[in-house]
C-alpha cells in the first residue's frame, strides 16, 4: 500500500515494489491458468469412435470452444499484465513454476495441476475464476456445486490490491514506461476483421489495450476482472459463468449416462517421472514442450522489445501467434493425448508445458534471432523425422505431424529471411 515514503522517493518506494511484485505474480498466475485450461481442452475426445455419442460430442464441441475462448482470454490477460508491467517500467514476466503446484502456492488454497476435462478440473477452474467475495446468485451457484467452495478468491483479491495500489501510487513517476512499448490488438492480429473496422469489438474474443496512465491501467484491471469473474454485473459470458455452465451440464450428462467420460484417459500427472514410457509418445510430448518453450522465447522478445525495427517486430508477430500457436502447438497437443503413455495402452500421454532450458529474455538482438532460428529449424527437423515414422504412428497421426513439419519449415524459413539470419 502507498505510504508517504513512496511519494518522497518519487513513487519508487515499497508500494511500487509491491505493485511490481503483484503484477509479476499475476503474470505467472494467468500463464499457469491458461496452461491448465489448454490441457483440459487437449484431453477432450474428438470423435464418436472414442466412445461418446453424437449428442455428447456436440456438447463437448461447445465445451471445447468455450475452454479455448477462455484460454485465449487468459493469453490476453497475460498480454494485458505485460502491458501494465511495461507501463510502470518493469519487465514482462513469461516464466512460471512447473506443474504441479500445491494449494499453498500463491496463497490460493487450490492446487495447480494438469488434469483432464472433468468435474474435478472444472471445480478447480470455477474456484480460480469465482468473484472475490461471492454473494447472491454467484454464492448460491457455488454452494450448489460444492459445499466446500472457498469463501473468497485470492486471484480476484490480488487484482483488487493491484487496482488500489495503482490509484494510491498515481503520479508522474508511476507510468514511466515508453508508450511505444505497449501492445494493442492490431499489433497481435494485424489484419482487421477482413477489412472491416469494428471499434471495441474484440477479434477472436481478444482485446488488448495500451496502458499509459491511471485511467487506462484501471480499465485494464477492470477488463481482466470482468472477463474472468464477471463482476460487476454477473456477466453470463465470464469465465466463472462458463465453467459453472460446463460443470452443471456435465453433471446432468453423468446422471443420464454414468459411463460418460468426455476426456481421453490421459496420465494423471503428466509431469511425473515415468509418466510416459512409450518412446514414440515421448517424442511427440517433448516436441510439444520444445515448441512451447520456443513460443516463450519469441514472446519475450515481442513483449520486451526495445530496439527492434518495425520489420523485426512484424516478423516476431508473424511467427509466434497464429502459425506457432495454432499450426504447431495445438495439433501437437491434440496428437499427444491420442498416443499411449505405456505399452499396455490404458492411458495416453499428455503435454507437460515444461521447458528444458531456462526461459528468459534473450537480450542481444542478433544472437537472439540466431538462437530462435536454430530452435525453429530443430523443431522442423524433429517433426519431419516423426512424420516419417509410419511404423510408430497411425496414418492419421503421421498426416497431422506432416502438416506440423511443413508449417515449421515455412515458419523457420520466413523467420530466418525476415531476420536476415544466414541459413
Amino acid at each position: 500500500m502507498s505510504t508517504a515514503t513512496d511519494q518522497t522517493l518519487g513513487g519508487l518506494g515499497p508500494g511500487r515494489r509491491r505493485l511490481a511484485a503483484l503484477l509479476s505474480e499475476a503474470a505467472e498466475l494467468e500463464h499457469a491458468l491458461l496452461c491448465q485450461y489448454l490441457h483440459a481442452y487437449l484431453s477432450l475426445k474428438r470423435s464418436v469412435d472414442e466412445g461418446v455419442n453424437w449428442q455428447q460430442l456436440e456438447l463437448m464441441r461447445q465445451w471445447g470452444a468455450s475452454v479455448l475462448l477462455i484460454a485465449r482470454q487468459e493469453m490476453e490477460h497475460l498480454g494485458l499484465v505485460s502491458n501494465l508491467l511495461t507501463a510502470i517500467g518493469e519487465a514482462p514476466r513469461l516464466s512460471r513454476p512447473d506443474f504441479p503446484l500445491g494449494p499453498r502456492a500463491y496463497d490460493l488454497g487450490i492446487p495447480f495441476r494438469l488434469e483432464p476435462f472433468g468435474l474435478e478440473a472444472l471445480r478447480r477452474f470455477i474456484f480460480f475464476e469465482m468473484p472475490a467475495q461471492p454473494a447472491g446468485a454467484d454464492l448460491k451457484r457455488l454452494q450448489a456445486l460444492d459445499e466446500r467452495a472457498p469463501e473468497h478468491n485470492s486471484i480476484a483479491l490480488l487484482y483488487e490490491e493491484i487496482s488500489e495500489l495503482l490509484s494510491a501510487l498515481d503520479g508522474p513517476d508511476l507510468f514511466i514506461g515508453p508508450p511505444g512499448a505497449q501492445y494493442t490488438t492490431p499489433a497481435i492480429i494485424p489484419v482487421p476483421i477482413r477489412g472491416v473496422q469494428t471499434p471495441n469489438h474484440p477479434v477472436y474474443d481478444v482485446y488488448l489495450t495500451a496502458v499509459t496512465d491511471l485511467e487506462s491501467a484501471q480499465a485494464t484491471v477492470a477488463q481482466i476482472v470482468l472477463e474472468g469473474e464477471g463482476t460487476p454485473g454477473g456477466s453470463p459470458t465470464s469465465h466463472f459463468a462458463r465453467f459453472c455452465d460446463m460443470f452443471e451440464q456435465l453433471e446432468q450428462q453423468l446422471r443420464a449416462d454414468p459411463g460418460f467420460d468426455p476426456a481421453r484417459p490421459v496420465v494423471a500427472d503428466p509431469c511425473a517421472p515415468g509418466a510416459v514410457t512409450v518412446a514414440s509418445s515421448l517424442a511427440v510430448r517433448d516436441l510439444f514442450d520444445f515448441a512451447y518453450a520456443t513460443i516463450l522465447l519469441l514472446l519475450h522478445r515481442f513483449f520486451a522489445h526495445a530496439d527492434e525495427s518495425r520489420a523485426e517486430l512484424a516478423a516476431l508477430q508473424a511467427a509466434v501467434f497464429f502459425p506457432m500457436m495454432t499450426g504447431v502447438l495445438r495439433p501437437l497437443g491434440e496428437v499427444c493425448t491420442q498416443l499411449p503413455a505405456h505399452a499396455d495402452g490404458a492411458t495416453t500421454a499428455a503435454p507437460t508445458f515444461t521447458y528444458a532450458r531456462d526461459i528468459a529474455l534473450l537480450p542481444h538482438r542478433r544472437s537472439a534471432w540466431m538462437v530462435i532460428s536454430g530452435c525453429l529449424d530443430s523443431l522442423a527437423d524433429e517433426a519431419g523425422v516423426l512424420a516419417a515414422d509410419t511404423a510408430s504412428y497411425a496414418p492419421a497421426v503421421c498426416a497431422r505431424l506432416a502438416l506440423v513439419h511443413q508449417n515449421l519449415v515455412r515458419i523457420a524459413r520466413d523467420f530466418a529471411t525476415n531476420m536476415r539470419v544466414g541459413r
Partner: protein
Amino acid sequence: MILVLSFEGWIVLRLPTDPDPSDEPRGVSGYTFAFAGEPDLDRVLYLQPPANWTPRSGSPPLGVTVRSAVRTDGRACPALVGATVDLLDGPVLENRQWTISLPGYEPIVPFHLQVTAPQLTIRRDMPLDPSNPDAPVWEVAPAVIAVQAADGMQYEPQTIGHATGIWDSLQVVTDRLAMLEQERAEETDPTKQTALDGRIAELKIAVATPTDRRIMARYFVERFAFPMLGPPATITGDQVGTTGGTLDPGGTDSKNPWRIAFWLGAWDPDLLCAYMQGALEIPFTEEPA
C-alpha cells in the same frame, strides 16, 4: 481475338476457420463446424456438388456454370452457355491459418480448371510456380505465391447484393434460425436433431452479436486475377463448331496468356457455401467458314 467465358454460381466450401488449425476436422474455436453425422471438414472448393453430398437445409442450388460466352468481336457462342466450370483434384485455399499467407491473400492449390460443355471440354492446369511446378506450397516463395493468390478480402455488400440478392445478412440469419427451429421441432432422427441443435446454437450466437463473423462474412469478397501460364491446355471436342475458331492452348512462356479473374464471397458459415463469379479469357483464332 479473345473468347470470354463468364461464370458464376454457388460452391461448397467446408472450411475450418481460424483460430482452428487448418486441418481441424470438426471445428472447435472458429465459426464453422461439421455437425453430427456429417463428414469431416476438408477445405476443398467444390465448384460442383460433391458425389453423395447432402447439402444442409436452406442451401441454394449448387454449381458454377458459364452464363455467357462471347468473343471480343461481339459474336456469342451459345453452345458454351450452361457449361460446368470446375476445379479438379481437391483444390484448397492454402492459407494454413496465417502460415502460408495472411487471411485473404491465399492461393488456391492445385488450380486445375475444367470447363465442360456438351461438345467441348477445356482443361488448363496452373502450377503455383510455373518454373518449378512440383514445388509444394510451403516451399514456394511468398512473392511467387502472391502472383496467383487472392488480393485481400474486401467489404463489398453491393457486390454481394447484386450477385446473390443477399443485402441483409442479419435478416438471412434470423430467417434461417426460424426455419431451423421449425425443422428441429419436426425432426425425429436423433442424429439429425443433434446436427440441427448445433446449427441453431451457432445461429443464436450470430443473432446475439451482429458484428460477429457469422454475420459479417457474407459481405466480403476475395478477388483473384492472374495470367494462366504453365503447361498448355488440353482441349477436346468440336472447337470450330462450338466457337467458330480455334483456342490457343497457351504455354509457360505465352506472350498472350489466358487470364482468369473471379471472386469468392457471400460466405455462409452455416451452410458452408460461398458464391463465385468471374470470367476466363482465352486467346482465340477465328477459322474461316
